[in-house]
């Protein structure tokens, strides 16, 4: 069978990083080819070369057997190669439709825009995605998940023959993923070749035909998805075996309450949310996209104002109006949107790690102790396995997953009593994921109260001692963690759209 | 509202010169029992701002208007509108090319600068090289003083060479830097003329900072720094106008015009040369300000 795209001997170097070493990759029409590897393995870099964003330092690339060197995104588009980037790159001030068809707006004479036609075409694309969105909504008002869907629509609007999806599902929930897979199925049946990058192992089995594995910028192997067990793929990725430990749920019912929230409300997003979390406990938050979990966290953290409600830390009511006050009270929050809210991406790893706890490195005259900062940063780099040439690398230049680890390091350093992790493993590879799980459990064991917001049900179930479920701004129930709770129970609460608040009897 | 209101639209208001004009106008206002306002744009390039000021002044039903035109033609339509409404206009500081103003209270800047040239030539014994630090390249006063000086040098003193004319916007600091650059470029320079207070002080600063010797400085206008420099002997002398007189005469003429009295079209308020020898004379003291 002839290849749609073939890449051979691809080399790419960045200052201090040999990102791709003699990598090969090929794609057939009508297949989903998964590209797997740990954070920083070089997946995004390889795909950026394929889509003309980076120039390769060495190697060859063929499309339909003809050698090509796309020198820009436009050239790649002309070759039929489209890409959905890992990091969102939308124009926030424009509407969904204006984003999707940017550069190809339907026009009337004299450069006038045909706005109704623009919206109609976009609506069609949305419909084909089963996406319920008004083409005229402003991108900036949408959550990351829905922005991700707009990106996908945009890539599809080019009718590409090759579609690269770099972690398209990182921000999506199960229902949306199902929709997306339907679209992928359809594209596949039309002969489109799809490169699929994801850290969600279960997806590989569901969707991929073949899997290519990269490790440390080197090509490892290409295997058939159907006849390779996941454990084998994981082993190829990390170069060792990863064991999934079954969760053990400690009894924390006697521990003091670390954080209590009473009747938290803000507009329609958060309505009368009350819960508590004890020292040593991991409270998971499940729910569908837009259920209001992030909003609850932001309110507790003082990032958004609240209309009503009380926050008690260690039994003391505390008036939190700013994140500063929250941190002073011992609450930390890892945002779900690291690029905008978690990191100063132009600054170094070292500076970002120290950001939330600058006092520790400052003497009374306000002078910084760089040596201590360096030591700390290097400590976390090795503890979390952050792949970076040095602690002085700008965070912008790290791979997505490694950026996420920097955020985690920042909050580990701050050492809060209550830590809220919003999608902590978004874009993190399977090896690092289990390390982070271990880390969270460790933190809990040390007596911290942990709140984990996650859209991955297996993750919530794997980690949580108790599971709070939200739907449309209300807390619809709190379930016990462990084997006894099933996905179905959680989904029931997560879709419980009536107003009756039902608390599953248990715990407390 | 039966008080008599006379707005004066000037070319500026922040500089000492204009403040002295205002003082004269205030004095006349108190004397004759009228209300005046005094307003001018930030710098002398803002022709259209001045016209907006004139328009706002007209809205307040003035009895007469005093006007120092930045551009003598630009304001004519508004002036005509005022004249049609029976509001007499008195020009001050520089004229308006039109017969609308009933009188003009002004200094003959060309003649004053020529006097500065004469004095400079006298100091230099009719030969040497001089430079000019002017305050503006396009405003009437800037042009008149520069050209008054240059033309007199050109016609009367062929052995005096004008080596450089540069502009410092009347800003003391900028004029200082300009003057220093001129001194650097022309090591044997014999004299410098500054066309207004800021320019003159700039020259004094430059000579002081570079410890230059043998440079004769002639200034223009007054102000404490300048009178001090003359007393110290750093500055040879300066031309002063009679700004207080200009302000006073403008208001006085406006009232006269309002009352239908006949006026001479030009009210020459005069200018004076002062130096160490006459700075304390009563006549000179009356026209100095600081």
């Amino acid at each position, binding site marked *: 069978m002839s290849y749609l795209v073939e890449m051979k001997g691809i080399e790419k170097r960045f200052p201090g990083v040999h990102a791709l070493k003699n990598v090969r990759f090929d794609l057939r029409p009508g297949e989903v080819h998964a590209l797997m590897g740990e954070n920083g393995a070089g997946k995004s870099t390889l795909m950026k070369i394929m889509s003309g964003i980076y120039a390769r330092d060495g190697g060859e690339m063929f499309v339909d057997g003809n050698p090509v060197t796309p020198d820009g995104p*436009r050239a790649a*588009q002309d070759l039929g190669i489209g890409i959905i980037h890992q990091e969102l790159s939308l124009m926030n001030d424009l509407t969904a439709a204006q984003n999707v068809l940017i550069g190809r707006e339907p026009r009337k004479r004299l*450069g006038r825009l045909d706005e109704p036609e623009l919206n109609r075409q976009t609506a069609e694309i949305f419909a084909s995605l089963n996406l319920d969105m008004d083409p005229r909504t402003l991108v900036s008002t949408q959550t990351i998940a829905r922005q991700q869907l707009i990106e996908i629509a945009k890539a599809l609007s080019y009718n590409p023959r090759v579609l690269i999806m770099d972690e398209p599902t990182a921000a999506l929930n199960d229902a949306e993923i199902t929709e997306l897979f339907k679209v992928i199925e359809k594209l596949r049946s039309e002969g489109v070749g799809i490169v699929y990058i994801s850290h969600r192992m279960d997806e590989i089995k569901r969707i991929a035909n073949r899997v290519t594995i990269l490790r440390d910028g080197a090509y490892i192997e290409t295997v058939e998805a159907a006849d390779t067990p996941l454990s084998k793929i994981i082993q190829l990725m990390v170069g060792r075996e990863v064991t999934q430990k079954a969760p053990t749920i400690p009894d924390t019912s006697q521990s003091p309450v670390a954080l209590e929230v009473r009747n938290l409300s803000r507009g329609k997003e958060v309505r009368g949310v009350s819960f508590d979390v004890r020292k040593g406990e991991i409270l998971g938050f499940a729910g569908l996209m837009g259920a209001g979990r992030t909003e609850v966290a932001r309110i507790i953290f003082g990032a958004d104002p609240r209309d009503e409600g009380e926050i008690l830390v260690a039994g003391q009511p505390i008036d939190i109006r700013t994140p500063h006050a929250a941190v002073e009270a011992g609450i930390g929050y890892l945002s779900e949107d690291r690029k905008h809210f978690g990191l100063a991406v132009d600054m170094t790893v070292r500076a970002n790690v120290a950001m939330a706890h600058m006092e520790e490195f400052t003497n009374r005259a306000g002078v910084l102790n760089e040596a201590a900062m360096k030591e700390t940063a290097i400590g976390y780099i090795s503890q979390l396995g952050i792949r970076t040439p040095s602690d002085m690398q700008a965070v912008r230049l790290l791979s997505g997953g490694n950026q996420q680890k920097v955020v985690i390091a920042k909050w580990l350093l701050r050492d809060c009593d209550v830590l809220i992790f919003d999608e902590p493993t978004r874009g993190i590879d399977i090896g690092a994921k289990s390390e982070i799980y271990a880390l969270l459990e460790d933190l809990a064991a040390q007596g911290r109260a942990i709140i984990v917001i996650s859209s991955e049900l297996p993750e919530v179930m794997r980690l949580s001692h108790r599971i709070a479920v939200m739907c449309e701004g209300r807390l619809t129930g709190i379930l016990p963690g462990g084997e006894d709770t099933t996905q179905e129970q959680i989904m029931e609460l997560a879709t419980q759209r009536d107003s009756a608040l039902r608390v599953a009897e248990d715990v407390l | 509202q039966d008080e008599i209101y006379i707005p004066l639209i000037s070319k500026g208001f922040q500089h000492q010169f204009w403040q002295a004009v205002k003082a004269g106008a205030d004095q006349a206002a108190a004397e004759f029992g009228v209300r005046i*306002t005094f307003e001018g744009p930030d710098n002398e390039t803002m022709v259209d701002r001045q016209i907006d000021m004139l328009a*706002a002044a007209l809205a307040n039903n003035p009895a007469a208007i005093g006007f120092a035109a930045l551009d003598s033609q630009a304001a004519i339509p508004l002036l005509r509108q005022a004249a049609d409404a029976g509001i007499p206009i008195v020009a001050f500081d520089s004229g308006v090319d039109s017969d609308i103003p009933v009188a003009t209270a002004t200094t003959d800047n060309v003649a004053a600068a020529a006097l500065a040239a004469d004095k400079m030539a006298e100091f230099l014994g009719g030969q040497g090289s001089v430079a000019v630090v002017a305050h503006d390249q396009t405003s009437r006063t800037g042009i008149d003083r520069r050209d008054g000086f240059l033309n007199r040098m050109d016609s009367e003193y062929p052995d005096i060479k004008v080596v450089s004319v540069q502009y410092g916007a009347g800003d003391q600091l900028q004029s200082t830097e300009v003057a220093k650059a001129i001194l650097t470029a022309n090591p044997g320079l014999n004299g410098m003329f500054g066309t207004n207070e800021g320019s003159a002080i700039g020259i004094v600063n430059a000579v002081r900072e570079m410890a230059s010797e043998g440079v004769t400085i002639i200034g223009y206008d007054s102000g404490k720094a300048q009178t001090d420099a003359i007393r110290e002997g750093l500055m040879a002398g300066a031309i002063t106008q009679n700004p207080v007189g200009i302000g006073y005469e403008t208001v006085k003429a406006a009232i006269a015009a309002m009352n239908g009295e006949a006026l001479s079209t030009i009210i020459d308020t005069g200018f004076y040369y002062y130096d160490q020898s006459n700075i304390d004379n009563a006549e000179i003291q009356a026209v100095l300000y600081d």
Partner: protein
Amino acid sequence: MTTTTVDAPKSTLSRIIAAGTHQRVLAFASLIVLLIGFSIASPNFMQTSNMLAILQATSVNGVLAIAVTLVIITGGIDLSVGTMMTFCAVITGVVLTYAGMPLAFGVVAAVITGAACGACSGTFVAKMAIPPFIATLGMMLILKGLSLVISGTRPIYFNDTPGFSEISRGSLIGDFIPSLPIPNGVLILFIVAAVTAYILNRTVLGRYCFALGSNEESVRLSGVNTDRWKIAIYALAGSIVGIAGLLIASRLNSAQPALGLGYELEAIAAVVIGGTSLSGGRGSILGSLIGALIMAVLTNGLRVLSVAQEWQTVVTGAIIILAVYADMMRRNKKS
């Protein structure tokens, strides 16, 4: 929330205005407050002649603000509008007075000169990747110098071109409705505003203004020739500046080569008071128009009240801050 929201067009003009209005009502409130305040404070303020004077005073700054709005929406800034306006006026003077060509040539010369200067700035910004602040600061100085060079540091008068001063001072409307002697300059301001608003909200050029200001990299990655569009936007802004040059030349019946410095800040202030964000991506022409009006009402009102000039400055500064603060507050409350 932002003015980019566009619905299916029905009555075009009303739509264009509506596109802006939604948000602009906010700055509008400040304007009304000022107008009412000054009317109460001085009986002389609310006269037809004074209202016309305010509009007349707005015309030049308003047109400049409109030009700057385009550039600011792309995320840039234009410091050269003041001296560019003068440069266009001087070129018109050369064409009409020195070369003695007919009026229409002068008008075309001003607009083309502006467009060329704008394209120049645009090229610096787009092709040479010079930050807009520096590119237009450089242009500001270059054009200031060239105006003086070309004019020989003397004003160029238009006495030989009959009708030139009518461009701004005459009143077409007044010819038909004598009770409404709105000067042509004001009429031109409104026409320029309407046309630019149309371009901004209804054409590809306008769309790319917002897109570039929102996320330039993403526009580029979408395969759009961003350089070309950016140059086009700066050139359009420049040609609008050319119109401002005509207006001021006509108003002063002369091209004043030294004028222009300082006008850029005033224009930018009007734009920001009007709610356009300096970080790009958001803004409206109607807002800038209202911003320019606020500035003009403020200056005029304080003058009519005979406030001492130094205090006028203080009050203007304070009110600019307050107006934007009020705007912020109301916007926050809405969202």
